[in-house]
């Protein structure tokens, strides 16, 4: 690569990166400055946390955060357990109907509960769960993607390890726990990160099944906060926006490498 080429290359990369980060920088700028500097970029503008304080006090964000936190924990936890069991069953047991059932599970990669809002609402309504945290979580507690991903990993575990444990008299569940799960740790990390960010960001379904402060997650709370015409200043809305994304953003900055690698791992089929 000639020096000219290299120069062109890094300029292009830098320019694109700059364009890409600009919207976010802009949001950060308005959130940390008084509203008078919303569109006035003087470096001497005074920094302030007031917008965050205003946003925090204007809507029950503490409750929203709590709800999201509970949701994400429950969903990811349930997915780990249910998908692990199913993945183990599909990977290491022979039983009639296995391939058809696995095909049906894979179908969920294409038709996600996200698009079946009408009928899923009907089901949740019939169960009497409208406006509860359980209603938001239930359609997602078992995931076809999770089953698929963990099964892929389990298939690579050498059968000799399995046999050795069996000769020692270990039952299927204890083999799963002592042999398979420890070997799949990177997959769990990858899947966990993907799942957490997915469910932290989920909006449409929670919007449909919740209608009170007590059950709303942050995404719905933020949209309610931002769309009420109460003359809220832009800088405050931007502060609220950053606030709701902050935990994920911070986690991303801290675990950048793992994050990127886990998304890669989760995508490779």
């Amino acid at each position, binding site marked *: 690569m000639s020096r000219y080429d290299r120069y062109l*290359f*890094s300029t292009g*990369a830098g320019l*694109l*990166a700059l364009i*890409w*980060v600009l*919207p*976010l920088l*802009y949001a950060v700028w308005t959130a940390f400055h008084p509203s008078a500097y919303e*569109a006035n970029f003087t470096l001497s503008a005074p920094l302030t946390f007031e917008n965050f304080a205003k946003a925090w006090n204007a809507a029950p964000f503490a409750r929203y955060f709590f709800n999201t936190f509970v949701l994400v924990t429950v969903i990811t936890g349930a997915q780990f357990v*249910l998908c692990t*069991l*199913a993945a*183990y*069953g599909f990977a290491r*047991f*022979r*039983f009639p109907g*296995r391939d058809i*059932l696995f095909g*049906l*599970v894979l*179908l*969920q990669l*294409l*038709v*996600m509960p996200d*698009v*079946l*809002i*009408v*009928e*899923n*609402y*009907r*089901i949740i309504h019939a169960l009497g769960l409208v406006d509860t945290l359980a209603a938001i979580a*239930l*359609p*997602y507690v*078992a995931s*076809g993607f999770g089953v698929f991903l963990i099964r892929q990993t389990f298939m690579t575990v050498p059968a000799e390890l399995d046999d050795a444990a069996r000769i020692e008299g270990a039952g*299927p569940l204890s083999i799963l726990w002592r042999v398979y799960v420890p070997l799949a740790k990177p997959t769990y990390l990858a899947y966990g990160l993907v799942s957490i960010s997915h469910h932290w*960001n989920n*909006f*449409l379904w929670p919007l*449909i099944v919740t209608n009170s402060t007590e059950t709303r997650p*942050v*995404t719905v709370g933020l949209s309610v906060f931002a*769309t009420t015409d109460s003359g809220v200043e*832009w800088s405050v809305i*931007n502060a609220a926006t950053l606030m*709701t*994304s902050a935990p*994920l953003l911070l986690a991303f900055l801290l675990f950048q490498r793992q*994050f*990127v690698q886990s998304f*890669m791992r989760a*995508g490779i*089929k």
Partner: protein
Amino acid sequence: MKRREWVWGWALILPALTFIFLFTHFPAVMTVINSFWSTPRGRRPARFVGLENYERLINDPTFWKVLTNNLWYALGTIPLSIGLALLMAVFVNRPFRGRALARMSFFTPTVLPLIAVANIWLFFYTPGFGLIDQILGVFGVGATNLLGQGGTALPAIMAVAIWKEAGFFMIFYLAALQAIPPQLSEAARIEGAGRWTIFRRITFPLLMPTTLFVSINAVINAFRLVDHIFILTGGGPDNASSLLLFYIYETSFRYWDTSFGATLTVVLLGLLCLLAIGQFFLFDRKVHYK
């Protein structure tokens, strides 16, 4: 012995399958069934109406509008975000000063909730006040309401989706690029191939499985993600920026016409099935697998 293995297998998959069937397969089937029934209202229970909902669908100009919108949305966002993703991956695949920063800048929008992303962009688009108008103002263009005009509302929404998605797809290309053995391009270079030729004849074909995977994801997302519409335009003006799933939401949960909502969902499911069939029969052959 064999019987025991069967029982174990079924027992292990039962819990997950129960939930997956209850919230994916069962509702999918019920969607189709309910599209042949009327919406129950008050004391009037649902009654079988045959193809009435479908007749209404065909004569509903809003349906055709959102369907065309959705196709344009897919056509506009998918190739662009995939192209940009590939460009980003090629950029950050080789070392230069600030590479980590560039990669971070590309990937960060992916982590943000779409609803937050829409909030950030809404401020960009605000007429007279937002950043875009301020820049245009320098060139003497007056206030433009990009989100409020029929012709620009959909492209404005598409820009947001591209910004959010490209970095996500970049990750997969990056993984694929790193898996390509460097000897291949070295050999080609010795043969006298230029860099563009190497990319076109070696790198790009080897990236085909990734492109397929990313494309399928992109298509699904084009029909699945409508969060930003809630914040940016609410589907307006005059449905100019409404997408199929957003229309399903409006029909079912604003006007509570759930049967028509189910009929619209059938169309969406049909489109996703087409995608599956297309992926299976058409695309698979063109993909170079090792």
